[in-house]
């Protein structure tokens, strides 16, 4: 589903990702863990075309994301191409990023009507269904500012799902929430993982969630994947010294 | 369109001295009035504050053109003798921009953190020393960018003096226009714009240099220049 091939990402002199190769199969749930600055969020941002690769290629569902084929050669993708390929990738952000000038309903139907070409009725029906699933159906005509952080994040998740993505990117989606709201959001994500076959890439510090939710955990450090295994194995018996160090520090948090 | 360029430039340049005199005179008067009125706005005396506030609101709230004509027509009759147009012009420039300047001064002094004021109280500095040695040097750095904008406004306002027969650049242009064809008219105005642009850049250069020196005195480097603050509009 997702293929990173020799990807390097530099910001000026700062090499954030180097020679990165990995694959994610359709329907897989992969969690990326590692210290800050290790490049995990950059991977999500590359998939979302919020950044572009310095070297290497990214393919999603068989199509090049970062580049496009022009006259038999690969050239860096233009905005139109990126937007095309990106249509089936959804992202949920740490800061929710709901549009404050629209109601919850507005937030949910904006992209499906403008991008996927759904009629207002279809988009509204889908919005209501999704809000039902996240448990916020009654708040549909309110403005985001009236909702708690956890509620806003659930709306953000619904908004991403409204586009019927084949890939869902979750960027530390519970890090900005009050601790008591975190569980609700994680439970929702688990339900989504179980009831859909969306490929999910998740960056998180919630190790418990990572263990329950993922098929695979990738440990990042210094812009490289240093360990890649099923959660049962990685958490119980990490091989790489840096992984051991990291898990020790993180799991000992009060 | 460019045949008479040397003539145009020399004629317009003949107006530059008056423009410069008006600008410099206006700036000096502005600084004086802004300082006095600005500090007066912060006075403990209600009367002083009210007088200053009235001055500021009247001169900010009425049009500069009105003020110009008022001083030009009314003042000589009131005072009894003729006033040179240039002097009337400088007076209006100073009074008008001094009112805006007073608000800048007030704002800058008020923006100095209260802790500075309290620290100098703790050191038993006299009110005079407190102002001169502690508050004003810090306020000064805050004031320089808005005053830069204000002085450029003043420079632009000197063009209005052409309406009361002061022989500055714009008036020179207006005298020249009837003698040349329409194509040249465009050139005349473009050259005028360029002259003002150059003068404006010179003002900015001086103000930036002052900003650097004032900041250095405080041991700071001046903040990177945000594109001239538009919010709040000192126009």
């Amino acid at each position, binding site marked *: 589903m997702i293929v990173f091939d020799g990807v390097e990402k530099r910001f000026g002199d700062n090499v954030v990702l180097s020679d990165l190769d990995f694959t994610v199969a359709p329907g897989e749930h992969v969690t990326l863990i590692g210290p800050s600055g290790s490049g995990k969020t950059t991977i999500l941002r590359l998939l979302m075309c919020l950044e572009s690769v310095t070297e290497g290629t990214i393919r999603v569902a068989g199509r090049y994301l970062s580049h496009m084929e022009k006259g038999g050669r690969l050239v860096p993708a233009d905005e139109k191409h990126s937007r095309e390929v990106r249509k089936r990738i959804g992202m949920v952000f740490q800061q929710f*990023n709901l*549009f404050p*000038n629209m109601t919850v309903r507005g937030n949910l139907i904006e992209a499906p009507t403008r991008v996927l070409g759904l009629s207002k009725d279809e988009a509204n029906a889908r919005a209501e269904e999704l809000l039902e699933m996240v448990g916020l159906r009654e708040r549909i005509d309110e403005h985001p500012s009236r909702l708690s952080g956890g509620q806003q994040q659930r709306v953000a998740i619904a908004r991403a799902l409204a586009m019927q993505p084949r890939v869902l990117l979750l960027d530390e989606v519970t890090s900005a929430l009050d601790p008591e709201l975190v569980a609700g959001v994680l439970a929702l994500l688990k339900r989504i993982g179980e009831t859909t076959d969306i490929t999910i890439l998740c960056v998180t510090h919630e190790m418990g969630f990572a263990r329950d939710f993922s098929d695979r955990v990738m440990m990042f450090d210094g812009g490289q994947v240093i360990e890649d295994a099923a959660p049962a194995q990685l958490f119980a018996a990490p091989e790489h010294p840096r992984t051991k160090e990291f898990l020790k520090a993180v799991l000992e948090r009060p | 369109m460019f045949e008479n360029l040397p003539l145009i430039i020399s004629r317009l340049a003949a107006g530059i001295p008056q423009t410069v005199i008006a600008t410099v005179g206006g700036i000096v008067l502005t600084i004086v009035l802004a300082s006095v009125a600005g500090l007066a706005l912060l006075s403990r005396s209600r009367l002083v504050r009210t007088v200053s506030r009235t001055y500021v609101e009247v001169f900010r709230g009425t049009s500069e053109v009105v003020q110009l004509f008022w001083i030009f027509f*009314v003042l000589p009759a009131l005072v009894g003798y003729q006033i040179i147009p240039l002097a009337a012009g400088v007076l209006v420039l100073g009074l008008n921009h001094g009112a805006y300047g007073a608000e800048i001064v007030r704002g800058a002094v008020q923006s100095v953190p209260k802790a500075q004021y309290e620290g100098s109280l703790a050191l038993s500095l006299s009110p005079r020393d407190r102002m001169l040695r502690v508050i004003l040097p810090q306020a000064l750095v805050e004031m320089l960018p808005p005053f830069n904008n204000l002085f450029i406004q003043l420079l632009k306002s000197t063009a209005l003096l052409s309406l009361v027969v002061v022989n500055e650049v714009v008036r020179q242009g207006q005298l020249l226009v009837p003698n040349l064809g329409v194509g040249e008219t465009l050139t005349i105005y473009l050259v005028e714009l360029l002259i003002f642009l150059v003068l404006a850049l010179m003002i900015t250069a001086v103000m930036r240099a002052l900003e650097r020196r004032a900041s250095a005195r405080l041991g700071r480097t001046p903040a990177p220049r945000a594109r001239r603050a538009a919010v709040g509009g000192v126009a």
Partner: protein
Amino acid sequence: MTVGWDWAYAIEILPALWQGLQVTLLATALGSLLAFALGLVFAVIRRSRVPVLDPIVRGFVELWRSTPLLVQAYLIYAVLPGVGITLSSLTAGVIALGLHYACYTSEVYRAGIDAVPRGQWEAASALSLPRHRVWLGVVLPQAVPRVLPALGNYVISMFKEVPLLLAIGLVEVITVANQITAQTFRPVEPLTMAGILFLLISYPASVLVRRLERRVGVI
């Protein structure tokens, strides 16, 4: 010239002055609309970094902001007839005002646009919204309300600069005041009444803008 204050005279000239003031207000209203619209266009061009237009707009705004409105008004009024477009004083004046103040309002809009959090742009991107929707649906609705007080201040400033358009033949309140003075040789009442009229409009207007600032929460 006779100096003194005659209340009867002062009141007698009020209707004529009011006629002139209406023109002043009209010029302000039209000029402001132009400045709001054009300034927004400039700001969006600059923030979208359109390749050729961006530096042109930037250069123009710098030049136009730093030079006198009076010269610009003369230019527009006197030069356009050369290319066959004859404009009335009001039209030329409104264009001059609008163009000049667009240079100020574009900076105001830019500040407002910059104040919209990056996350909003990213979320809109993540939803693959087309560019015009990002601007119209997400960014501008958040940017513009915040800058309304600053725009309001510029309207007031413009109002006070309208009188200089008498130089290109606009008959507004100061023109009328000067005409009356020329007839009666009494300058004090016309000019003072004109000044008072300005104050009566601009002072309450600034108070309103300050109140608007507090409601909107200045950037």
